[in-house]
């Protein structure tokens, strides 16, 4: 499926909401029943993959990080004792750490932006050079932000989380997230405006 990011994320969340009714039970079953775990996994695969791809702008790396995230979930699942909503926040937190670790390593290698730039064109789908250019600019601007700002921007604009939900994922307060979001957005706009793209 190829679609605008915002539209898509709403669909994902609408589906998620209709599932929460029995997810608490599913989490309990998944502790001892691999089939139930597989169901739980399939319910959250899309959310994790999309979060990773929106953070990294690279499908291949996003798949690798998604694998890492779910292996970590398997490894640590016995320690998770929260509700279904907390499960989603928990996996967002694991994914955030995994993506940030990847970004740090990539930054050390100095190849992140170069690599990301190289894969942009292939992923933009026949929607004219304007969209392609915008995506490239967005990607460069987002990846130039601090990892925490990137996380907040992605969770807010791509995953459509509320500030309180982002605060839960980051272990921060609503107020801090609000101010960091404003700062991140200002930096992003400045960066993109400097590249000639009005946002």
């Amino acid at each position, binding site marked *: 499926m190829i679609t605008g990011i915002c539209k898509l994320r709403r669909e994902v969340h609408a589906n998620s909401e209709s599932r929460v009714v029995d997810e608490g039970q599913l989490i309990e079953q998944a502790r001892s029943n691999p089939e139930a775990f597989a169901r739980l996994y399939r319910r959250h695969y899309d959310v994790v993959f999309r979060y990773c791809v929106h953070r990294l*702008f690279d499908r291949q790396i996003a798949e690798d990080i998604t694998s890492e995230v779910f*292996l970590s979930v398997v490894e640590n699942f016995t320690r998770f004792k929260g509700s279904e909503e907390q499960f989603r926040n928990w996996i967002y937190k694991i994914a955030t750490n995994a993506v940030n670790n990847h970004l740090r390593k990539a930054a050390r290698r100095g190849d992140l932006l170069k690599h990301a730039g190289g894969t942009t064109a292939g992923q933009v789908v026949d929607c004219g050079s304007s969209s392609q250019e915008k995506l490239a600019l967005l990607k460069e601007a987002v990846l130039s932000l601090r990892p925490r700002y990137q996380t907040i921007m992605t969770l807010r604009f791509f995953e459509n989380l509320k500030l309180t939900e982002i605060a839960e994922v980051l272990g921060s307060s609503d107020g801090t997230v609000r101010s960091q*979001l404003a700062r991140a957005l200002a930096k992003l706009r400045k960066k993109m405006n400097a590249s000639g793209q009005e946002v």
Partner: protein
Amino acid sequence: MDDNEKQFENFIHQIKFDDSPDYDHRDTLEQDLLAAIQKQPRQRRKPIEIWRIIMKSQITKLAVAAVIIIGVILGLSAILEKGATSAYAIEQTIEAMRNIVTVHFFAKDWNNRGFETWIKVNPETGENDYHYLNEPERGQISISTPEITYFYHPKENKVRIARGQALRSDIRFGRYIEDILDRVIEPENGEIQINKEHDPNTGKEVIILWAQSPSNVMEAFIDPETKLPIRINFVKAVLGQAVKSIDEIYYNEPLPEGLFDFEIPEDAQVIREQPPLSVIDNPNYGISAEDLTRDEARIKIIKEFWYDVINKDFESAHMLLPVASVKRLEKVFAEVAELISIGEPFEKPNINFGILTPVRVRFSHGKILELYQITHFRRIDGKLSCVLAGEGQPVKWIE
């Protein structure tokens, strides 16, 4: 969402990007995960249970066996933190905190009001023996010692004096992490996670101790060298937990000279309170207990409180539980749908200002919360009345 955010959202609306998952990858990964599950030991020990065993064991209480215990604990911690940060164990932080003599920190409450605190810790008990609290936004400086407590309002040049240590906390700073885990997280069968992350504030790698239960979520940022927390956030906390975040912490700094020696300024208005003045002794709050037995009054105030909460009349509920603001009550109890039971009262040694009553309420999502409400009786101008004075730990969800 403000205009800037809307504008940005419009911008990303215009971008089309293939972010659809590849279901071949999903299916392959599923097989890998199932294989990983099969490889795991069947009887995998749960970290929190290990924690409980350690904390409740008599052995841990024997100082003479400390050396052996540390060895055991470190061994268990290797299991506990498998896959996280094997070089770190929570017990290292617990031990480090037990050696604190003074602590100086800057924190925020749930209304985002900043305050500064100095504590002289009793290393034997971990208790906050001497306490200095500066709350500029409230315009109050409080100095509390085991003998006396002063509340000074510089602007009004007014001093209130209370007998004894009136700045009390269930959580001892010298035992901060263990008290949080033992008294707050563990009773609700919470979980802990340990990760390492780059801390943009310090530019260093820090250990993140994430402790979570249904009602409480704490995140402590721990210095890998000293093993002491450098920052603590509460993402979520039960009613009565005053501190939202401790943003800067300094350990074992020399105390400023005379910090706890308060001299009453000249011409200051002095009000001597006995027992320590607080909102729970304000006659504007609570209900009259005249013509009622204490038990009848206790049940009446609890019933009235929950009646107000269920009817979303949080202002009235606040008049019965004044230690919680209207906003906080609304945030915590907005979804309460039914009062299920009021249990028999009992006393707790560390709560000397009221009796506790176990209360169960059902939320609209169906879960039941159990909490221990404290009823405080006072006689003002010869008339008996009572007020709700908070909750004792643990506050927990009952499935």
